[in-house]
């Protein structure tokens, strides 16, 4: 500002007003200009003042001189450096000052200037010849320029900002926004033989177009600047000049960002030694040293990275693009046209969708984000080629040299959506269709509200057949319409219609068919609670028609809550009359039974064998009684082999329940039966008798019918099943240990007993589920059926986490087996014979007779064939063998392995032989006569088996070192006097650290000496070990009467005569 201020006002001419808005800026300030060059890493700034230096003017007149004239209106840069330093904080002595070459048009006898000065009179010529001048500049590095841009307002006090500087400020602003948007990528640059990585712009086509436009704005003064004088004068073209500046600005922002928050790359020694190239690449990009200072990328590595960064690798997996066709709905308020347009879409970034019009006009420019144009165009073309062959609508609208969009009629849009769309997609083309077409939530669905029907009488045990009433509306998206409104809207036979202000899809033919059926059945028919449950569990009431159900009264609310809560069961208190403790899951089972039966629904308890279904059922019976809900007895039907077990378990857990067993030749019949049962709480009978005595049984108004081993009615056609299903009762419960869900017919049969009609007729069930599940393995059908039965079946497995933590490692259960008629008779005969022979003998002979007699009795308990080898070893001659087979079947069904211990080698052989006839899994047999080598083989085979294996072992043989941890079930098929022997055998199956639980089943022939042995053993177990050194011998020391007390048959009522 060495010029006088008085000059400022001197002249004010037209022609330059574009540059300086005269009204707002004091004319006296100098003008600040900016120049760039691709070869410079800084922006050159210079100030233009109002008065020229006369000395410079003079030198400038010398033509053809060795040195160029100095631009006469530039001032010395010192003051400028101070000012920028104040704004940016960049040390003033760090600014480099130098001179650049600038070509300017000559006006009269001096170079052009932006401020009207003393030598620039009013009229300027249209053109003027160009001449070079030196201009003194200070070099402002790009990162400093960033700060200058941020604080540019401060410049206004001292300078007028020239258009050139305004231009670069604006470019800086753009650079910031581009970096903010992530539009940058690494690139490899080569200078001489050196390779560097740096950041370059990665512009979208839209941004590239912006940049092209922006380039055109570059003031001419910026176009003809050179950092130094050159012989052959060529200057960068405006676009590369501006691009270089943009690149440098973005790079500066990025490096500042990374300097502020550096990434955590911590190169270890191995990295520094082995990955110097990779580290150098990252070091260049981040501005960190990464311990590779001085190392530059090697040529080969740089080449490899360059190939990647420019998408030019031959086999490089360019993150692929796909052709994409978009169909949009017509403008609001009209029904046509439907715009159909062609695009490319990135698979890596599905939000990147580029219109075809852009792709056709795209050119490969530096700094573009997209893969090479050839790739994009080819992708678009091939996609279109395929799409056209798949869709007549596309063929109509998207052909021609550079197709990009068309407008379909409503009918065409309908064809496109309903038929073409799928074919187009199958050709690998992306489709973007209106949300209401693709999204489920915009499909019409039924909103049902349900309440208990008025036709029901006060009696509350109708369960599944309780009458209810439905109301409905049709919902679309968030709108809900009355049926009339809906029909009004869809009467047009179109695949989509406007309903309640939005488009919806609906196949009106199909929909009206489904709706008509629905109305006929549920609105005008007489729907039941079963229907409500079914609808609330399935989400559809017909193909494509979803449904949601809301309650309209408390009764329906309670029912729906129950159905939706699944098996999260609140535990209800177990009545104090129950003797014993239920485990947590058993309490849940008890609650489940109550929850279902008190609403009139039948329930199935299908826990794994050994989880204690019996106590749960007994607790449930006691709860019914405690709640005062029952006035009449309950009927329990079970296989003959477990009648005894039930009798004992009921006595054990609830002595207060009065139990009667309807069994045997002397059982009550007719009216006598009806009179008799009214005095009991629970009547036990067998499936066999249920079929035979249906007449009296169906006369009794049972409070409940319980089926144990409910798989006995698996074949719904048998008389026995029909009879059981026909018995009337207020409550129905089924117990089974088999995985019913996988045995569909059995499932149907049990469910039809529990909730008649719920799963439809057997025929309907067969066609809806059985073939779809068993043959087609249709996951939809499986899911649907699971949902349907879930409210009524509870099944816990030993392996369930919640159950397993609740179980002890070893669970022992006593299984009381009834004797068959033959067994009972034979047993009685042996006892009688024994009594007679003992009368006559003493001493050794007596002892011998006792031992022989005991052995014979035990053998009768096992199988009568063992002493009467006349008619072979049919399993149904022995109650115990039958029961073992039933249980083994469940074991094998669960995929588990079992050990069977017997003290008699012959019986072990027989059992193994019987098992071989019954099961397809491997049956192994180990007795005293098995050679040692063979024995090891067997054990190995047992331990390594993947599926179920049954291993029969004669206990005496199992003396040493057996490790049989593969077993989860252990059967002691006959009893020892010494429980320690049994324990020792059992212990082989579980060692410390074994993860699973072992179930031990002690098979006891009910009413026989085995039961007595067991009772004594129970006592013995509590005594010290040395007292236990008993054997059968101990019996010989008893008196004949004591002995007969032990061996004589009790409870002969359990013996069967059905077979």
């Amino acid at each position, binding site marked *: 500002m060495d010029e006088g201020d008085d000059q400022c006002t001197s002249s004010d001419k037209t022609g330059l007003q574009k*540059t300086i808005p005269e009204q707002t800026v004091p004319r006296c300030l100098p003008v600040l200009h900016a120049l760039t060059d691709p070869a410079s890493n800084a922006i050159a700034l210079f100030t233009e003042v109002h008065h020229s230096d006369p000395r410079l003017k003079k030198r400038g007149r010398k033509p053809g001189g060795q040195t160029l004239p100095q631009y006469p209106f530039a001032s010395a840069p010192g003051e400028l450096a101070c000012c920028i330093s104040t704004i940016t904080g960049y040390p003033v002595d760090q600014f480099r000052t130098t001179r650049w070459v600038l*070509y300017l048009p000559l006006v009269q006898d001096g170079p052009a200037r932006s401020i009207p000065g003393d030598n620039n009179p009013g009229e300027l010529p249209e053109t003027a010849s160009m001449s070079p001048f030196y201009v003194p500049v200070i070099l402002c590095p790009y990162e400093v320029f960033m700060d200058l841009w941020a604080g540019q307002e401060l410049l206004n006090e001292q300078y007028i900002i020239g258009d*050139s500087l305004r231009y670069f400020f604006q470019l800086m602003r753009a650079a910031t926004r581009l970096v903010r948007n992530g539009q940058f990528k690494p690139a490899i640059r080569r200078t001489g033989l050196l390779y560097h990585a740096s950041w370059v712009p990665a512009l979208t086509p*839209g941004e590239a177009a912006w940049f092209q436009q922006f380039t055109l704005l570059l003031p001419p*003064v910026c176009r003809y600047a050179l950092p130094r004088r050159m012989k052959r004068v060529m200057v960068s073209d405006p676009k590369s000049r501006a691009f270089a500046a943009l690149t440098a600005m973005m790079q500066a*922002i990025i490096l500042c960002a990374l300097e502020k928050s550096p990434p955590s*790359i911590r190169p270890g020694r191995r990295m520094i030694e082995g990955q110097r190239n990779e580290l150098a690449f990252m070091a260049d990009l981040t501005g960190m040293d990464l311990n590779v200072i001085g190392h530059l990328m090697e040529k080969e590595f740089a080449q490899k990275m360059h190939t990647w960064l420019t998408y030019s690798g031959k086999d490089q997996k360019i993150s692929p693009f796909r052709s994409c066709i978009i169909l949009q709905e017509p403008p609001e308020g009209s029904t046509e046209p439907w715009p159909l347009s062609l695009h490319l879409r990135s698979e890596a970034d599905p939000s990147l969708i580029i219109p075809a019009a852009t792709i056709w006009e795209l050119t490969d420019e530096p700094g573009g984000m997209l893969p090479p144009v050839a790739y994009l165009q080819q992708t678009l073309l*091939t996609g279109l*080629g395929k799409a056209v062959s798949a869709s007549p609508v596309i063929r109509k609208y998207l*052909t021609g040299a550079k197709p990009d969009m068309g407008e379909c009629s409503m009918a065409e849009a309908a064809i496109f959506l309903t038929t073409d769309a799928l074919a187009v997609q199958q050709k690998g083309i992306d489709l973007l269709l209106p949300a209401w077409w693709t999204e489920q939530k915009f499909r019409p669905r039924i909103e049902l509200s349900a309440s208990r029907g008025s036709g029901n009488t006060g009696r509350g045990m109708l369960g599944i057949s309780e009458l209810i009433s439905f109301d409905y509306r049709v919902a679309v998206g968030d709108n809900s319409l009355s049926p009339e409104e809906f029909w009004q809207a869809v009467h047009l036979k179109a695949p989509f219609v406007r309903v309640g202000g939005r488009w919806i899809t609906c196949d009106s033919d199909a929909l009206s068919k489904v709706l008509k059926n629905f109305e006929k059945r549920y609105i005008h028919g007489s729907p039941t609670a079963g229907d409500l449950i079914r609808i609330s569990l399935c989400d559809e009431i017909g193909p494509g028609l979803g449904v949601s159900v809301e309650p309209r009264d408390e009764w329906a609310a309670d029912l729906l809550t129950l159905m939706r809560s699944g098996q999260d069961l609140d535990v209800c208190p177990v009545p104090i009359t129950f003797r014993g403790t239920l485990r947590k899951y058993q309490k849940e089972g008890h609650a489940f039974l109550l929850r279902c039966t008190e609403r009139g629904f039948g329930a199935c308890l299908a826990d794994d064998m050994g989880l204690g279904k019996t106590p749960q059922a007994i607790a449930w019976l006691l709860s019914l009684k405690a709640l005062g809900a029952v006035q009449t007895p309950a009927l329990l039907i079970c296989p003959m082999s477990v009648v005894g077990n039930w009798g004992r378990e009921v006595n054990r857990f609830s002595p207060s329940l009065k139990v009667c067993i309807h069994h045997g030749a002397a059982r009550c019949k007719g009216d006598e039966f009806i009179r008799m049962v009214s005095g009991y709480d629970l009547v036990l009978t067998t499936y066999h008798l249920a079929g035979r005595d249906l007449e009296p049984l169906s006369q009794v108004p049972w409070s409940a019918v319980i089926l144990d081993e409910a798989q006995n009615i698996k074949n719904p056609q048998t008389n026995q099943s029909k009879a059981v299903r026909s018995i009337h009762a207020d409550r129905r419960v089924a117990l089974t240990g088999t995985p019913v869900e996988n045995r569909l017919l059995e499932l149907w049969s049990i469910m039809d007993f529990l909730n008649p009609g719920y799963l439809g007729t057997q025929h309907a069930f067969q066609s809806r589920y059985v073939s779809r599940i068993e043959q087609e393995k249709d996951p939809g059908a499986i899911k649907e059926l699971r949902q349907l039965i879930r409210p009524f079946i509870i099944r816990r497995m030993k392996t369930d986490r919640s159950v397993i933590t609740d179980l002890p490692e070893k669970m022992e259960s006593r299984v009381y087996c009834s004797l068959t008629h033959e067994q009972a008779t034979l047993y009685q005969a042996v006892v009688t014979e024994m009594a007679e022979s003992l009368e006559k003998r003493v001493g050794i002979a007596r002892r011998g007779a006792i031992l022989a007699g005991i052995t014979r009795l035990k053998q009768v308990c096992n199988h009568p064939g063992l002493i009467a080898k006349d008619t072979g070893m049919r399993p149904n001659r022995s109650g115990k063998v039958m029961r073992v087979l039933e249980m083994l079947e469940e074991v094998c069904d669960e995929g588990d392995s079992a050990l069977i211990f017997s003290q008699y080698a012959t019986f072990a052989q027989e059992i193994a032989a019987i098992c071989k006839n019954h099961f397809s899994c491997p049956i192994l047999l180990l007795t005293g006569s098995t050679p040692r080598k063979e024995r090891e083989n067997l054990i190995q085979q047992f331990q390594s088996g993947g599926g179920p294996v049954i291993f029969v072992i004669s206990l005496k043989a199992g003396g040493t070192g057996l490790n049989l941890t593969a077993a989860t079930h252990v059967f002691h098929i006959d009893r020892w006097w010494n429980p320690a022997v049994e324990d020792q055998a059992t212990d082989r199956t579980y060692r410390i650290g074994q993860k699973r639980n072992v179930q031990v089943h002690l098979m006891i022939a009910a009413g026989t000496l085995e039961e007595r042995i067991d009772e004594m053993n129970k006592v013995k177990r509590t005594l010290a070990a040395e007292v236990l050194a008993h054997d059968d011998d101990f019996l010989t020391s008893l008196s004949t009467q004591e002995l007969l007390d032990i061996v004589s048959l009790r409870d002969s009522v359990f013996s069967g005569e059905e077979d």
Partner: protein
Amino acid sequence: MKKRRNPWWIKTIYDVSQRNIIRLKSEWGPVGENWWAKVWVAVLEDAGEKGRLTRAKTCARNGSGSRLRIETGQMRIGICCSGYTIRDVVFLFPKFKEDVWVRLISLVAADAALAGALLSGDFTEYFVEELRKENIHLLPKNFREITALCGCGDAHHLCIHVAAAWYLFAEVLDEDPWHLLMLHGLPKDELTRLVRELREIKGVDCSKQSIPKERLSDRTIEVPKLENPAVFFSMAGDPLSLLPGCDPDTVANPILLLGPAPANLGGKNISDRTGNLYPVIREYAEALVRKKEGGE
């Protein structure tokens, strides 16, 4: 069968190794899977006599073909229906004249869907149909359009050999219908090249690009002799109206588009490592934008 002696110039099926024998893949029913092969077969079946065609089909199924050659304008195949002698069958296709090719090429280049079908290799009905509208027939309309020659003495124009060859060629077309271009005079690759040229699509599989050396004279212009001094210091418009990146939500990640890099650093792909730098950089720039432009 007893081997007969043959003159040396007549080849027999025994001269062909089992490996090179061509037989129909279709074991029963009609021949031809794709629509164009069905059209091809229909042309034969319109012209031939049923019994003969059935025998020819059986013959083609039994492995009668050998020595298939497809050349510009013609297809040759050896057929042996007797179980012994091979008859050479030749199909001469009508070659398109040059002006037809010129029309075809400009037609394909001018319709993106046709060019796309050609480039994608999808022999679509649209492609054939559009050409047909211009009276250019890639598939024959009738049997007589193809000149079928056979070396046998059978007086019938459509002898069993020709028919068998026709069936066998149907399956050749099933595999690659673009043979039809070559048979009409121009290989597909050549047509593709010409169409690309016309549409100005450069080869996609660019050969290895070397890194350009940065030279100052890369993109340079000469300083013009004259300039307008009046606007020399001015911008040619208002830059404020031009600003990129106004919508920060709809941007793509350039690193994602590149796919995985050919190098790892410390077990992590360079592409991931580089991509991980973006969030802090963008955040920093976001702060700059907000500071400068206020609550925009």
